[in-house]
């Protein structure tokens, strides 16, 4: 399936959960927040929340700012 992750179109294995996606990308879940199609996915829901073809995902973290 195809999904957009942080603005880039990616080919991903079918049936991935958000938790699977973070593992697939090598991202530690405790460092990030995830939004799927404009809605925050709570960390506790990462294992259940399945990604669908065409989804738009944002994975964000804290950076320096004023």
């Amino acid at each position: 399936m195809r999904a957009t992750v942080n603005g880039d179109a990616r080919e991903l294995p079918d049936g991935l959960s958000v938790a699977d996606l973070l593992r697939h990308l090598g991202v530690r879940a405790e460092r990030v927040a995830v939004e799927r199609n404009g809605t925050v996915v709570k960390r506790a829901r990462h294992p259940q929340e399945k990604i669908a073809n065409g989804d738009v995902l944002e994975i964000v973290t804290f950076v320096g700012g004023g």
Partner: protein
Amino acid sequence: MFSADAFTLGGRTFHSRLVVGTGKYRDFPTMQKAILASGAEMVTVAIRRLDLQAQGEASLLHWIPKELTLLPNTAGCYSADEAVRTLRLARELQIGGERPLVKLEVLADQKTLLPDGEETLRAARQLIAEGFTVLPYCSDDPVLCRKLEDAGCAAVMPLGAPIGSGLGLRNPYSLQMILDQAKVPVIVDAGVGTASDCASCMEMGVAGLLVNTAISGAQDPVAMATAMKLATEAGRLAFRAGRIPRKLYGSASSPVTGIVGK
């Protein structure tokens, strides 16, 4: 004792009245030293897409002392919707905490970086309804500050001058009106250039200051952070001490009688 002089924001107590940003440092070790030198108990952070190509890079949070309060901002947002969306993500990033403190910043355009009051007020109402403790960056407009306070903001944060300009407090008379009416803490955010700006704002009675560029952009950020810590404390003390009234003409400080030969 004068040093026991705390203030509260959304039920949280702070002793340091200098809040510092974490942006634009040349490296994380310098940022960490500057934060420690400033004595800040709260630091601002921004929310951005994780760079998926740069995995394994040192995390910002690794360099921020754990006991400090993080104040996520909405820098880069130009509408209420973008700001609300960003802070919903920030809440998910935060480690626990009821009614998280957030710095709401909705800008109008990229040239002036001035805040958009209408969008800021709209976002503030939405965020407060969702349980955030909102500290809004805003223009030095007493009417807007009153509306933000009425909407339930935990503080108002009028600018001293445009972000990163270092021009200092451009309109002390507007700030005085804001201070006279406000029942929530007033924090001057943006515009501070050097230590004397910190002192002069604090002398007017503001609750605190938020400074980033003036520290991170100084030739020696750690020295500037120290200077601003001292100036903020000095200004606060001077405010509490109660200054003398300004007078146009001189007033002798030594006795005017018993002068030799007269």
